[in-house]
């Protein structure tokens, strides 16, 4: 332990701070440091495997004698299982195991809920067999729309106790017991200052109701596992964001000791928050494999993926905000009803409570249960929807007091990092000239608009992870760490940090990840993977290198402190002649080399703390005749701490922006209100942004040296998608001069907004009223 004086901050805003460093942990890098590989654009270690088809995803695992499983699901949104007969299915050819998931008397609460499962020697036979399962259902009344579910006398989704599914990464407070009336649970409430007084002090007050749709995660690799028993030991290849949380769930539900469950994720085809647990499908596969005495593969199809394994909940947000004439926020208030199907945790208050400074803030968040698939954590839970409502409100309030929306935000944003990001982004998007560009010469049907939004995120990673670094006699090194790579580039990040600390080229380092038999790695949620893992790897590499230095010291017969390690090798303090190259030093190690296992140190409480900040600007074009919106350009300026790999960090932002555009304009899970079934459970009618719709995306990272951990690293996956839909929606409003208060923004909603504006304008003595009640 010791205190180090560090220079911390960003871009001309540096200050000196004393930070307590734990024993066994290296001092955070200094801004004057030059890096050999950290921060460069480094191709993924596994890119070749991906580009040649060699990469083996969990869905690609094939084992000798492997069986294929399918799940039978309910078609109706609310039923009771009266009887379940598996006999006919058991007798079908090739069927090796059959399992009841629901039992007679069980209530099924959404179309797509699991009823039973089979394992067969071919996928076709499994499919045939599930249709031979005889189930008698008793139909119950159901409700799939949240406004109807809120009404008195609505069919109850849960007659008795609420049985919600939770997963790591849920919004804070999601697991707390809350009061419930009918289908409405809550509120989760927060109250700061006094909003009534705040509104009293305001010169302008706006309020509006904003609604957002359900978005499904739609990772290209579906949920699923391959499960294999060897004696009493279970090995599972899972498509997961948390190999250790899958292990935990399997151990608990199956009653198998943790020590006898291994979970492996070599390659993974995306998760976005929905893949932390084993899930019904994982547990089912393990049970079927046990019964059949053979390995079982169970992966969902696209339809099941949409129905049953998670989504971003819908929201109806009433927001009220007040400000003084000179542009200071005086009060912010939010009441949100969120629709997470059979799950809770639907709050959206994060941005409103945390982005802009305001003394009086009141929020109430209600979950509204409906008979539809449960929500799950989805890339910044609650934030894209919350940012959409908040940023629209900020624009309207700015308009009310006659202030430029950028200036209004700069006046109220307490984050110096984000204020800088706003300035950079505004410059790049051409904010100043945005009004003049609204009309497009030569095309009277087109309008252009520019809008903005802010991102906030919180997590900085934490303790738990461990890593082992071994340095071999030939000078090469090996890192073993049980983190999984969802596609973010975690594998490469591990290699880069080790290479940087050891002063080795990346090619000399072997990275082994993705297996619970390795030292504990973090679950990839909350944008915490890099800030949890990178400091762990650096500490282990630093400790291993110190062991090499210690062996050099003993060979020279000098105290350890006298040996100085550098990229070139080892030298002796005060004796220029005494030096050993890295290779020579390693050559003197014992046959087994040297290893060090380090644990992630605590976050430094005395660090340069801030919420992770981001700012995005969108430039859109709207055809006022067809209502079509095209995003021309997005400028994204983000705080990613100190970037480990510019190539993969940038890719995270691109992906976040594109998902945000997709959310703003296209994606929408549609349930048929008459049958309660999803009408677009595919990727054709459930429209995901495609190659044709991609705008230019300009990404800037603002390096921040915070010393929260020894690598100054911060996650970027979530903040990258928080403000995109908000910025796009504000840009559309700027373009057409009318506000659209619900997502997705469709040609129909654009035309309706234009129509409403025209009708209001035609009324004598009335002005267009932006910011009124929706």
């Amino acid at each position, binding site marked *: 332990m010791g205190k180090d004086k560090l220079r911390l901050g960003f871009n001309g805003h540096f200050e000196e701070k004393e930070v307590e460093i734990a024993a066994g942990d290296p001092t955070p890098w200094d801004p004057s440091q030059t890096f050999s590989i950290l921060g460069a*654009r480094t*191709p*993924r270690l*596994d*890119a*070749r*495997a*991906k*580009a*040649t*088809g*060699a*990469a*083996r*995803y969990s*869905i*690609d695992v*094939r084992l000798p004698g492997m069986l294929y499983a399918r799940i039978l699901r309910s078609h109706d949104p609310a039923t009771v299982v009266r009887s379940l007969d598996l006999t006919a299915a058991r007798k079908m050819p090739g069927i090796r195991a059959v399992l009841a998931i629901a039992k007679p008397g069980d209530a099924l609460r959404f179309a797509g809920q699991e009823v039973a499962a089979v394992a067969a020697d071919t*996928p*076709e036979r499994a499919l045939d067999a599930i249709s031979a399962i005889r189930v008698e259902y008793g139909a119950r009344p159901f409700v799939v729309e949240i406004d109807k579910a809120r009404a008195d006398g609505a069919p109850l989704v849960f007659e008795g106790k609420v049985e919600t599914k939770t997963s790591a990464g849920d919004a804070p407070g999601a697991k707390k017991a809350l009061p419930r009336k009918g289908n409405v649970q809550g509120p989760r409430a927060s109250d700061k200052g006094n909003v009534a007084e705040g509104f009293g002090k305001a010169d302008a007050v706006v309020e509006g109701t904003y609604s957002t749709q359900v978005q499904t995660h*739609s*990772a*290209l*690799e579906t949920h699923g596992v391959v499960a294999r028993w060897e004696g009493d030991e279970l090995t599972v290849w899972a498509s997961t964001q948390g190999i250790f949380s899958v292990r935990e769930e399997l151990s608990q539900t199956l009653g198998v000791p943790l020590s006898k469950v291994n979970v492996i994720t070599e*390659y*993974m*085809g*995306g998760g*976005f928050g929905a893949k932390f647990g084993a899930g019904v499908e994982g547990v089912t596969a393990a049970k079927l494999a046990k019964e059949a005495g053979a390995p079982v593969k169970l992966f969902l*199809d*696209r339809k099941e993926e949409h129905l049953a394994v998670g989504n971003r909940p819908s929201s109806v947000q009433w927001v009220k905000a007040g400000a003084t004439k000179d542009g200071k926020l005086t009060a912010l208030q939010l009441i949100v009803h969120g629709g997470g199907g059979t799950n809770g945790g639907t709050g959206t208050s994060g941005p409103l409570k945390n982005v802009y400074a305001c003394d009086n803030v009141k929020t109430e968040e209600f979950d509204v249960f409906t008979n539809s698939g449960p929500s799950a954590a989805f890339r910044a839970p609650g934030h894209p929807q919350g940012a959409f409502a908040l940023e629209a409100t900020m624009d309207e309030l700015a308009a009310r007091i006659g202030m430029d929306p950028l200036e209004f935000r700069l006046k109220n944003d307490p984050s110096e990092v984000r204020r800088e990001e706003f300035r950079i982004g505004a410059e790049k998007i051409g904010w100043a000239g945005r009004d003049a560009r609204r009309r497009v010469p030569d095309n009277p049907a087109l309008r252009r608009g520019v809008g903005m939004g802010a991102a906030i995120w919180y997590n900085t990673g934490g303790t738990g992870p461990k890593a082992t670094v071994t340095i071999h006699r030939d000078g090469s090194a090996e890192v073993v760490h049980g983190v999984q790579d*969802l*596609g*973010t*580039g975690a594998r490469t990040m591990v290699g880069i940090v080790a290479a940087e600390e050891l002063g080795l080229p990346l090619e000399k380092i072997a990275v082994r990840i993705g297996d619970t038999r390795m030292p504990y790695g973090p679950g990839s949620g909350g944008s915490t993977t890099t800030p949890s893992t990178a400091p762990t790897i650096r500490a282990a590499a630093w400790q291993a290198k110190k062991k090499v230095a210690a062996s050099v010291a003993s060979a020279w017969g000098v105290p350890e402190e006298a040996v100085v390690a550098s990229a070139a090798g080892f030298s002796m303090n005060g004796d220029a002649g005494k030096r050993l190259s890295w290779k020579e030093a390693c050559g003197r190690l014992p046959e087994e080399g040297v290893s060090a296992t380090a644990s992630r140190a605590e976050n430094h409480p005395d660090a340069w703390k801030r919420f992770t900040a981001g700012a995005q600007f969108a430039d859109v074009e709207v055809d006022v005749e067809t209502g079509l919106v095209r995003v021309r350009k997005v400028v994204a300026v983000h705080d990613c701490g100190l970037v480990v790999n510019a*190539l*993969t960090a*940038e*890719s995270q*932002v*691109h*992906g*976040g*922006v*594109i*998902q945000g555009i997709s959310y703003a304009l296209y994606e929408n899970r549609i349930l048929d209100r008459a049958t309660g079934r999803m009408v677009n459970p*595919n*990727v*054709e009618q459930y429209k*995901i942004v*495609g*190659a*044709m719709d*991609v705008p230019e*995306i300009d990404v800037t990272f603002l390096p921040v040296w915070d010393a929260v951990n020894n690598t100054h690293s911060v996650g970027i996956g979530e903040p990258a998608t928080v403000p995109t839909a908000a910025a796009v929606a504000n840009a559309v409003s700027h373009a057409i001069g009318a506000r659209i208060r619900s997502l997705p923004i469709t040609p129909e909603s654009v035309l309706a907004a234009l129509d409403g504006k025209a009708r209001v304008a035609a009324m004598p003595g009335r002005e267009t009223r932006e910011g009124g009640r929706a």
Partner: protein
Amino acid sequence: MKRLLDVLREDCALTGTKEGCGEGECGACTVLIDGQAVNSCLVPFAQVAGSSVTTIEGLTGAEALQSAFIREGGAQCGICTPGMILAAVALPKDADLQDIRRGLAGNICRCTGYEGIYRSLRAAAIPARAAD
């Protein structure tokens, strides 16, 4: 009848061809049939009798494009990548940027934001005019 996709993945153990939707909407299962990019999830196996089927494992002559995907970050999670590469090599040689966009419109990528993919195509100059 088995789908070509199943025969490739299950019978031939060629798992480089992926399944994303099974309905011809995502392009993850793209292979070349006699040089044409086709969604193998839509092809009954018997239909390829007498044709030549190329999967990512057997693709030759696309090293420049594959290297560009590696260097330029064209793959994030990478599960769409084999399909993207096969769709890209089937583009006509004189395709412009709009043709490329149209040619890849049937291939969904949930991760990269397509930027890395375009950059890879431009870097490989495949097709040559992608640079403009």
